[in-house]
């Protein structure tokens, strides 16, 4: 076991989570920890001799600085909630699956699978790493659901339980397409093999054997027709019902026509049919489908606001806390909102002081102070201590009423069908050729009519074309996914390639949500004076004071007397050496109206104004080069829910020409996007949080930014991990290149089609030609699309 702790920048890193320790006070023997939480986890593991956890990976833990409140999982004692969560139950056992977003390495796996050592009531725990889930079997006699959840939390894996879990179980991974693929592959391979006599010719004496081969092919093709090809029938049937022809319709038609014609040939003994082509199409198409599906199976793009809310709220009744599920909360209930919890309904604050972070709803990053009796709105997050509110308006109407209607707009527009750019033309071309051929043979030799027409459908079946689409898109989705940029569907690639205007949200998108820049303006302050300021600030719980004291490094060893806090204005106090310090708004400290915008904290010492601390947003790394490169090709605008304190900074970043709008409410953002679209722009919107949800929906491409892929983001077309944002231009370039690849392979497939049609219209398409043409066209197109898109992404260093 490594006992030496890595040291960087002269700072000790926490043995548990690897973050720098603020001081060296917290330690066990040689091992230093950054906080009590991390230390506690270590103790638990040590007691249960699970310290292998630390030898498998260096500093594998998850930071424990934010303490989960003690009775958070009291809701798991509630029978009703329990039954909705567990998957199996009998007299002695409960089976449950928890989602643990913190899971990230083999150490986690080791620890979670040894859960029975920490909690003996656990019979077994099995991790599914890919889904970040753990299946737990527990004995009801020895432990309870709540205790297991608390055990998990105590070792740093807090189960994530959301309202969505209650509504429906997560759909199990659909395996049927994999079965279909397996069967198609089996049949396709064998049919190819059995078709060789057909291709190479066979001795006249062996005609009987040929019939055996043909009938075997026929039998092998049946499961493909009836089972493997089902997804294509379903999808095309759905599209026909919606009076819209999607790309699966011609495929389904081609499959059926090919089968019927081949069957007739075999039964009449006139030929071997085209079973190899037919099963090949199905096999290759299914591969493409599965690749596409796999890319975004993990991600849910349809999360609505309910997934943000906790599963249950503590309702106070006769001074007892009763965990209640969200839908059951009624107007008039008193809710206890714990620290760091979202407020689930509009209400009146009845107890405690609220510092509510509305960044979720408005984008304003600095918490708002609310006093008793004031109205608080749903969607805010309490940041300081517990509060009680009296519900006046319950969910779902309470929250963001304007969104409901707007959100439906796009879901109708967006249908997950892949439509190649030239598809309608292609259908036309295909049918025209078929019709002309039909007329020609009708006049000249009616006996050749049907063979010729069916051949045309077999050969022009847009399979090569489709393959090129499916595979290029699938590959691009896969590459982007590997780079933590997840698209909802292949259609999104098209949309990204077409954008003309990029709109950014500021707070949380261009700036980092949980970091602030604080700098000082005014007369210089000595070390001691700074320390005094920090001491005063650390006495206050106002968010700005807290940020300030954290920034200055927590005032140590400074006594403060006569501390007084003027709510909403500032704080004052006398320090050790008798300095009278005032800290707060311009009005409070300087007794003059502030003439600057932005967030400032003024300080004065002995009634002499010294200067002010200016709070500004911390921009994400590399935002500047990103904006510069975007500006060259697109119009860029920035919308912000915040005040315009950042205008100058932003101007430097995005340049003079770009539009900057401040104090934008969610509706304003939505309207802005709409106006752009009316002007004919194709808009890409990048935002975070609920305040952008409407705008994200409205825009042609809505990209939600997420600090962690597992975090919850508003419904969008794509999710990008925050760290990948600077590479957005490359992603866009790749999407544009995708279009070119598809067009190139489209041209290639037309060439193949023309060759095939040359034989088909003459009614002389022999199985040999079909057998060579179909796989070779498919394979060469596969190579072209896969190869070129992979090569391209390599060139772009992805």
């Amino acid at each position, binding site marked *: 076991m490594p006992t030496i702790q890595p040291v960087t920048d002269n700072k000790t890193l926490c043995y548990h989570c690897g973050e720098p320790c603020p001081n060296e006070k917290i330690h066990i023997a040689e091992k230093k920890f950054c906080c009590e939480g991390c230390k506690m986890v270590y103790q638990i593991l040590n007691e249960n001799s699970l310290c292998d956890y630390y030898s498998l990976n260096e500093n594998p833990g998850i930071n424990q600085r934010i303490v989960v409140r003690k009775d958070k999982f009291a809701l798991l004692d509630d029978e009703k909630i329990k039954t909705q969560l567990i998957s199996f139950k009998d007299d002695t056992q409960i089976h449950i699956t928890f989602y643990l977003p913190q899971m990230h390495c083999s150490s986690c*796996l080791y620890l979670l699978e040894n859960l029975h050592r920490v909690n003996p009531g656990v*019979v077994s*725990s099995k991790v599914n*790493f890919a889904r970040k889930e753990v299946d737990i079997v527990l004995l009801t006699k020895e432990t309870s659901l709540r205790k297991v959840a608390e055990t998990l939390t105590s070792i740093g894996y807090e189960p994530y339980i959301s309202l969505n879990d209650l509504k429906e179980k997560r759909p199990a991974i659909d*395996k049927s397409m994999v079965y279909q693929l397996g*069967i198609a592959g*089996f049949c396709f391979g064998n049919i190819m*093999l059995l078709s060789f006599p057909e291709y190479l010719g066979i001795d006249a004496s062996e005609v009987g054997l040929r019939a*055996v081969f043909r009938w*075997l092919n026929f039998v092998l093709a049946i499961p493909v027709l009836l089972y493997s090809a089902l997804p294509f029938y379903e999808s095309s049937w759905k599209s026909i019902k919606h009076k819209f022809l999607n790309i699966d319709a011609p495929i389904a038609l081609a499959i059926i026509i090919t089968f019927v014609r081949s069957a007739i040939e075999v039964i009449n003994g006139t030929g071997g049919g085209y079973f190899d082509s037919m099963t090949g199409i199905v096999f290759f198409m299914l591969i493409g489908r599965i690749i596409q599906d796999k890319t975004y199976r993990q991600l849910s793009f349809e999360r609505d606001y309910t997934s943000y809310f906790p599963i249950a709220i503590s309702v106070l009744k006769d001074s007892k806390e009763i965990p209640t599920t969200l839908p059951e909360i009624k107007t008039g209930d008193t809710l206890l909102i714990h620290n760091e919890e979202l407020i689930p309904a509009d209400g009146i604050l009845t107890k405690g002081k609220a510092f509510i972070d509305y960044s979720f709803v408005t984008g304003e990053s600095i918490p708002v102070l609310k006093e008793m009796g004031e109205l608080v709105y749903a969607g805010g997050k309490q940041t300081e201590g517990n509060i009680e509110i009296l519900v006046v308006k319950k969910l779902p109407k309470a929250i963001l009423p304007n969104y409901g209607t707007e959100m439906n707009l796009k879901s109708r527009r967006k249908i997950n069908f892949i439509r190649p750019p030239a598809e309608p033309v292609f259908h036309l071309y295909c049918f025209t050729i078929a019709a002309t051929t039909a007329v020609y043979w009708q006049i000249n030799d009616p006996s050749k009519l049907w063979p010729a027409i069916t051949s045309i459908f077999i050969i022009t079946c847009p399979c090569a074309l489709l393959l090129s689409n499916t595979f290029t898109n699938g590959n691009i989705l896969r590459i982007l996914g590997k780079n933590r940029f997840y698209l909802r569907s292949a259609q999104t690639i098209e949309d990204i390639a077409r954008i003309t205007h990029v709109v950014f949200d500021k707070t949380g998108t261009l700036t980092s949500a949980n970091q602030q820049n604080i700098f000082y303006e005014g007369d210089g302050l000595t070390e001691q004076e700074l320390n005094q300021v920090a001491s005063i600030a650390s006495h206050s719980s106002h968010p700005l004071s807290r940020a300030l004291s954290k920034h200055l490094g927590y005032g140590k060893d400074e006594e403060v007397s006569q501390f007084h806090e003027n709510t909403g204005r500032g704080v004052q106090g006398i320090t050790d050496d008798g300095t009278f310090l005032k800290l707060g708004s311009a009005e409070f400290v300087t007794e003059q109206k502030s003439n600057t915008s932005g967030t400032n904290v003024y300080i004065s010492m002995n009634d002499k104004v010294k200067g002010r601390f200016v709070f500004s947003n911390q921009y994400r790394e590399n935002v500047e080069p990103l904006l510069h490169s975007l500006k060259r090709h697109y119009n860029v605008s920035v919308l912000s829910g915040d005040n315009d304190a950042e205008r100058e900074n932003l101007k430097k970043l995005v340049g003079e020409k770009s539009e900057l709008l401040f104090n934008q409410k969610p509706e304003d953002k939505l309207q802005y996007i709409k106006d752009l679209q009316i002007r004919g722009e194709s808009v890409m919107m990048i935002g975070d949080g609920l305040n952008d949800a409407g705008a994200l929906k409205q825009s042609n491409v809505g990209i939600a930014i997420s600090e962690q892929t597992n975090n919850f983001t508003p419904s969008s077309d794509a999710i990008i991990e925050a760290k990948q944002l600077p590479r957005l231009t490359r992603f866009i370039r790749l999407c544009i290149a995708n279009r070119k690849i598809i067009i190139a392979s489209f041209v290639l497939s037309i060439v193949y089609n023309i060759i095939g049609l040359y034989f088909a219209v003459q009614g002389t398409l022999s199985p040999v030609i079909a057998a060579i043409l179909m796989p070779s066209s498919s394979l060469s197109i596969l190579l072209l699309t896969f190869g070129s898109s992979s090569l391209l992404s390599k060139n772009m260093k992805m």
Partner: protein
Amino acid sequence: MSVILILLIASISVAGIFLFAFLWGTKTGQFEDDISPASRILFDDKPAQPKPNNK
């Protein structure tokens, strides 16, 4: 030519066995999580096997 027929039966049944193995593997979830089994095998003490239970 009966030898070809025998070979035919043999080859298709071998392929059939593999198909069956594939379907079985998919059904029992062997392709679902390709990360944990790989590291699980490296742990010194294996997690206690779940007692045979009434599943």
